[in-house]
């Protein structure tokens, strides 16, 4: 995975890669796609909930529990850390902390998305290279 992903993804991502095989070559990419679709929905819900004052910390915590869960399952370590912090602020009833942390979370999430898109593109072109090489041998 290398330096490109370091810190952003943990061993759980590697576990996902181990589950991929020739019969299911797009498994990780599919999981990532589901993750980003689902997290976009959650981000939207949280955004809206943060605009309604006074904040409903229980609801926010519930959204963040889901977000943390799926982030953990895909191995998104930085996003997971922000989720944990956000939940701490929820429990403390700290609205400002929540808002600040959420901005950070969205940044990390966007960065991860870009990195993964690039990662899958590189994988795909690597695979094409191998195929080309094999074809040239014939």
């Amino acid at each position, binding site marked *: 995975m290398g330096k490109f992903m370091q810190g952003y993804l943990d061993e759980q991502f590697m576990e996902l890669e181990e589950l991929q095989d020739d019969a299911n070559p797009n498994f990780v990419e599919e999981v990532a796609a589901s993750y980003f679709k689902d997290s976009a929905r959650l981000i939207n819900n949280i955004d809206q909930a943060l605009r309604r004052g006074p904040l409903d910390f229980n609801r926010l915590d519930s959204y963040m529990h889901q977000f*943390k869960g799926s982030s953990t399952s*895909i191995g998104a370590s930085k996003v997971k850390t922000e989720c944990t912090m956000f939940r701490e602020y929820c429990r403390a009833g700290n609205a400002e902390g929540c808002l600040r942390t959420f901005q950070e979370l969205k940044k990390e999430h966007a960065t991860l998305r870009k990195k993964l898109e690039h990662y899958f593109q590189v994988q795909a072109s690597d695979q094409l290279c191998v195929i080309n090489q094999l074809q040239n041998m014939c």
Partner: protein
Amino acid sequence: MAEVMRSETLNISNNTSSLASPELLHVLAVDDSIVDRKFIERLLRVSSCKVTVVDSATRALQYLGLDGDNNSVGFEDLKINLIMTDYSMPGMTGYELLKKIKESSAFKEIPVVIMSSENILPRIDRCLEEGAEDFLLKPVKLSDVKRLRDSLLKAEERVFKNIMHKRELEANDIYSQLKRTKI
């Protein structure tokens, strides 16, 4: 030599093992998170299990035929060897699902495993007291799934061997009958 034998003419017993097929365990997985559903499904398939995944406890009960009134008996022909459910789900929790399954006569013997991202001891105790087979911390590991599968297969193997032996005896019996009629 052998003519194709039609099953109506044979008196082979209809007992089947609870395995979906001789080799495959059928697992019902329940989780409201789409990422976790994809993950657990893959873990189970890689472990050579047949998988049915649903997104809520309510749908799990529907699938099992337990969603009617208190007299729901469940679908008789449904072969499930293991149920794996998330604990925290909106609506009905995994714990409540566990209770309903253990209250049903049709499915109370089926092992139920609870999965949770939170390591809360009273929660774990409560689930085990209610009859959960195991409690797994998320993210679930492939080794967890394989361990479950292996212990279930061991139990099923014994049942299956008995049935295969019985069928062998019955087939030998029919073969001898056929030989006699040809003569």
